[in-house]
């Protein structure tokens, strides 16, 4: 009896907890999950990948997309792309920051400044992009997701799958078609994408093979200069922007879980000892 009930409650929980995941778009095509270095219990960011992703972001994405919650200093913080403080200082100084207290209203950036927005206002952003608003990147990797068919989403709770957003972004960047399929009425100024809800996306295909040249440090293997590589790198960088503390969070989590399991074992032994000799 106890066993059946345990299973039942477990099922109730699993189903109940998973229900929100079901609420997403059903018509979206299947998105392939990628092998991210930051997935799972021992997931950490790959510093080189984050640096490459930052390069893609800076050279391509940042001309339209903001990242208003990111400060330059974040780029030098632990668990991130691992730039040195000097590098970040130099980088920040390359940007002009609006500051009413400065002479002339602008000054060179410092590490404490936020990442400057490419457009002064939302309306300017829309005007420059055919009416579409390029979303801010700060938490975008967590603001997107994907839906697994029943019953596979149940397993996500046990694997801690939290990479739906980056899987979607990666798929989106690779999901462009030169021409819309026959019968699809593509509005003027829009582009056809397999994964974008409604398929008509305002963003032109942003990345293509060979577009960006990665600098290769001595002794490192060369990284392919392909759309696939760029999109993976920039997705990883976006995950870092959304979850800059992911690595330390997971490291702490491992210690906490280890402690709890051991502690539970001790508690179980103590409880048994106290209850020994009591018929119950």
């Amino acid at each position, binding site marked *: 009896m*106890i066993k059946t*009930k345990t299973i*039942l*409650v477990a*099922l*109730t929980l699993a*189903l*109940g*907890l*998973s*229900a*929100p*995941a*079901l*609420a*997403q*778009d*059903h018509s979206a095509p299947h998105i392939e999950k990628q092998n991210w270095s930051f997935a799972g*219990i021992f997931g950490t960011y790959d510093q080189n990948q984050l640096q490459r992703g930052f390069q893609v972001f800076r050279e391509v994405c940042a001309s339209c997309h903001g990242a*208003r*919650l990111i400060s330059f200093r*974040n780029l030098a913080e632990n668990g991130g792309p691992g730039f040195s403080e000097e590098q970040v200082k130099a980088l920040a100084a390359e940007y002009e920051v609006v500051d009413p207290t400065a002479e002339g209203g602008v000054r060179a950036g410092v590490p404490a400044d936020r990442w400057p927005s490419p457009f002064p206002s939302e309306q300017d952003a829309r005007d420059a992009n055919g009416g579409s608003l390029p*979303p801010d990147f*700060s*938490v*975008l990797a*967590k*603001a*997107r*997701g994907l839906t697994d068919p029943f019953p596979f989403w149940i397993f*996500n*709770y046990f694997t*801690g*799958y*939290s990479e739906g*957003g980056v899987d979607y972004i990666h798929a989106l960047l690779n999901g462009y078609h030169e021409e819309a399929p026959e019968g699809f009425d593509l509005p003027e100024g829009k582009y056809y994408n397999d994964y974008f*809800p409604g398929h008509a996306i305002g963003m032109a295909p942003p990345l293509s093979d060979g577009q960006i040249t990665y600098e290769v440090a001595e002794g490192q293997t060369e990284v392919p200069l392909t759309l696939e590589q760029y999109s993976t790198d920039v997705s990883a960088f976006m995950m870092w922007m*959304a979850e*800059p*503390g992911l690595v330390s*969070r*997971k490291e*702490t*989590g*491992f210690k*906490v*879980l280890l402690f*709890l*399991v051991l*502690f*539970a074992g001790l*508690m*179980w032994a*103590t*409880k048994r000892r*106290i*209850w020994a000799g*009591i*018929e*119950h």
Partner: protein
Amino acid sequence: MSEHSTYVPGSAAEKWLDERLPVARFAKEHLMDFPTPKNLNYWWTFGAILVMCLGVQIVTGIILAMHYTPNVAMAFDSVEHIRRNVNGGRIIQATHAVGASMFFAALYIHIFRGMFYGSYKAPREILWILGVIIFILTMATAFMGYVLPWGQMSFWGATVITNIFSAIPIVGESVLQLLRGGFAVGNPTLNRFFSLHYLLPFVIAAVVALHIWALHVPGNNNPTGVDVKSSRDTLPFHPYYTMKDLYGMVLFMIPFAWFIFFAPDILGHPDNYIQANSQVTPAHIVPEWYLLPFYTILRAIDFNVLFINSQLGGVIAMGLSMVALLVVPWLDTGRVRSGLFRPMFKWFYLLFVINFIGLTYLGAQPAEGIYTLLAKVCTAYYFIHFFVVLPVLSRIEKPLPLPTSISESVLGKAHA
């Protein structure tokens, strides 16, 4: 159970205190010596787990409130500020957000345990009703808390849920405006929800105190549902149940920590990482999972009944689903408490649990196609269980023979 006190002040100071404010006596009687049936299983540890959940929410919530800004222009970014810049902020925020789900997981287990073992039956009706009040207050608190990060689901959830009140005849519109502080969800809504979200947990804590008081008058029910007959049936709460409850709490913290550290956002909706925008409606507006069963009941009534339109009908059905819980002690009038000795109830209970899971599942589905029909079926069964099955079973069911006492049943099990 507090008539025969075993407390003897151990020192002059304790005696002095005891004559003025007998807190030590109270603690000895109610936290240590309190006679508790010896056969409680692990489903009974969820009461203590819930106290822990409430404590965790209050402590993390107070810290979050130190860094949060309840203003539509700043709320979203201030939550991100907590995650990014406040020391330990990501963990504290995740604990609070995951904590809400864990709270409800424990709450549902606690309620369903009570329903199976007949813990609502005499003399525990008040205890049960206080529990239902806690449940409703907790839903209100959680709903308002979900609005505070001011994401898309916060905003649209608030819009849909407050809109429910407009269905009330005559006063509906006024109530709606009072809740929102205006004609639409906006800054006044956010401010009053923040204020109430801070207030209600302390109201809940007060009702919890009454709930425990009402528990300590008749004492615990137990898996056999048979009353305590003698002191041979019971154990002092301490150390036996303090230890068992603590062990249960630590076990419960394992999945809790799993979500906090490895999937802090998996129980929420990605759309809530998009700042609230009154101009863009999300494709599907879904409340948090723990509100889904009742959301399904609300949406299931999509037809007019006589002069009652579908909107009011939905609200009545949802209200009635709570009323059903409140009056269940008088619907299920059978003398035998525990489902273990009720051969027919057992199966209907199982069906009810499955049906409830179905209601939860359907709440997350779009209201279209087969889902609307299933929602009606599940909603109907929810009410049939309370208003038909339970009263009929109490009359026609022939319960199995009960053990004469708890210790007899315990011994029987030990020798079997």
